[in-house]
């Protein structure tokens, strides 16, 4: 039990460092992107010279990079992530409003994709033969060749739920990994020995193959969350689902740099946290006697 704490501590520290690094990286990119510091309010003829000067001095303060970072992180620590330029609303409010929709879609999508991938990989292993192999190869090959935006359009046309579109995009990738992991585990000497003793295929699968593949499956779970977040952008944008993905697309289309920067930070935090959690869980599974 004691030996878990240093590992957990290291994970949390690396999570914090990676998040700060991701924040600095995205803030730097925004700071040096073309057009940074330009404000359309300066063009408003109704504003007086002193008002325009005040706007310019507001941007001039951010010219010092260190001051810019300190200001950004100090405000972020107090929950102030700035204001969206295109929507003219606090970013924290926008994110709080939209995060639940994306979290729900991503979690349901990942759960559906995993369930289907595990069932099909398991069936493929238990019922070996050319038909399951060829049919799954054709299905997976077809799904892998579809751009996620096309899947989104198909679901928009069919009025299908967003989480199912996410599941269709990530399922083939998960399936390929799970199938390979199961095949590899199935070739292990202890599994062959179990088969030689006459233990049934289902029992071998449940008691020997799955435990052997469990650590790698746990690690894959973290990656699949990251994949789902990536797929959420085109799917939410095209299916008009009010989530973080749609917000990211809207921010990109409108070149709303503060919003892009903060969304990058949030996605970094979520994906690094899920990867760390999955990595930590997979280590725990390996340590089981």
């Amino acid at each position, binding site marked *: 039990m004691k030996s878990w704490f240093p590992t957990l501590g290291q994970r949390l520290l690396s999570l914090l460092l990676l998040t700060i690094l991701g924040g600095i990286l995205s803030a730097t*990119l925004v700071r040096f992107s073309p057009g940074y510091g330009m404000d359309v309010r300066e063009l408003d003829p109704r504003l007086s010279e002193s008002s325009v000067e005040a706007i310019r001095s507001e941007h001039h303060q951010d010219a010092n990079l260190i001051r810019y970072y300190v200001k950004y992180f100090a405000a972020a620590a107090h929950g102030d992530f700035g204001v969206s330029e295109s929507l003219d609303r606090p970013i924290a409010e926008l994110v709080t409003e939209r995060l639940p929709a994306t979290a729900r879609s991503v979690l349901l999508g990942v759960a559906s994709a995993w369930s289907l991938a595990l069932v099909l990989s398991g069936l493929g292993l238990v019922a070996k033969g050319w038909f399951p192999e060829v049919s799954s190869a054709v299905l997976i090959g077809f799904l892998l*060749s579809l751009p996620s935006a096309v899947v989104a359009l198909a679901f928009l046309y069919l009025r299908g739920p967003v989480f199912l579109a996410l599941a269709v995009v990530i399922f083939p990738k998960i399936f390929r990994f799970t199938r390979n992991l199961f095949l590899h585990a199935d070739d292990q000497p202890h599994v062959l020995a179990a088969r030689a003793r006459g233990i049934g295929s289902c029992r071998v699968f449940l008691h020997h193959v799955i435990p052997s593949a469990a650590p790698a499956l746990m690690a894959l779970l973290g990656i699949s969350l990251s994949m789902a*977040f990536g797929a959420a952008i085109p799917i939410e944008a095209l299916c008009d689902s009010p989530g973080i993905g749609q917000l990211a697309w809207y921010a990109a289309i409108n070149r709303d740099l503060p919003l892009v920067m903060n969304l*990058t930070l949030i996605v970094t935090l979520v994906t690094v946290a899920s990867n760390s959690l999955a990595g930590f869980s997979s280590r725990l599974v390996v340590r089981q006697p």
Partner: protein
Amino acid sequence: MSVKRSARIIAAVILAMVTLLALGAGLVTPYSYAYQFRDLPQAAPSSAHLLGTDPLGRDLLSRLLYGTRLSLFLAPAAALLTTLIAGLLGGVAGLFGGWHERFILAIADLSMALPLLFVLIALRAMLPLDVSPLISVVATFLMLGLLGWPSSLRVVWATTRSIRESDFLLLARSSGSTSIRLILRHVFPNLRPVLLAQFWVSIPVFILAESTLSMLGLGVMEPLPSWGNLLRGLENFSAISANPWRLVPLVLLIMVVVCFQLIFPAQEDLA
């Protein structure tokens, strides 16, 4: 001949045919991809326009062939860039170890933590949206090439590390071979198949990423055609049901990506 080998040969023949058609676009169709037949918007297929025209009256076959040329040739260019970066960084990390290895792998881990599409969209947002079509093409494929290396790097690093610990390299080192000779004569020839596989598996990934980016309006800009731009026509469902031949770009895209997958298995299968 095994089924897999036959499938690979058929896939290679199809890819070669598509490539030849794209190269000879000017010979196959007499029209420019941007020329508008203003009196023929949404025209049905005819002898003059084999795939009909789009809502702006542009010949769809011309746009498809020139779009194929762009997507099919620039995706390998981006894949080459990715493979070079992955080969260089993965080679250095695997061969030298120590802090080089830790630093490069930490950067790769950070890059892999973020979804590629999200990073592409975030970076694209940093650039002005009203760039010229040519710059949009270069920016799109350059971003793909510069951001797609982390997963390939992991594979190259693992291979280089196994080469570093191999008996033949130890023998060459003990025989007094210089570092340059070790890299050129022993490491690089053994890395070549891995680099080739990484190059090949990156191509369909980049084709699909470009399609999604262009469909979202953040990739290749009009009037230049690309597969992604052509797929934007799918957003109009009523037009698709009335003119099903509008699905031809999607069919071609799926066919080409499947061919790439058949010739080389995906990253997961290689791993």
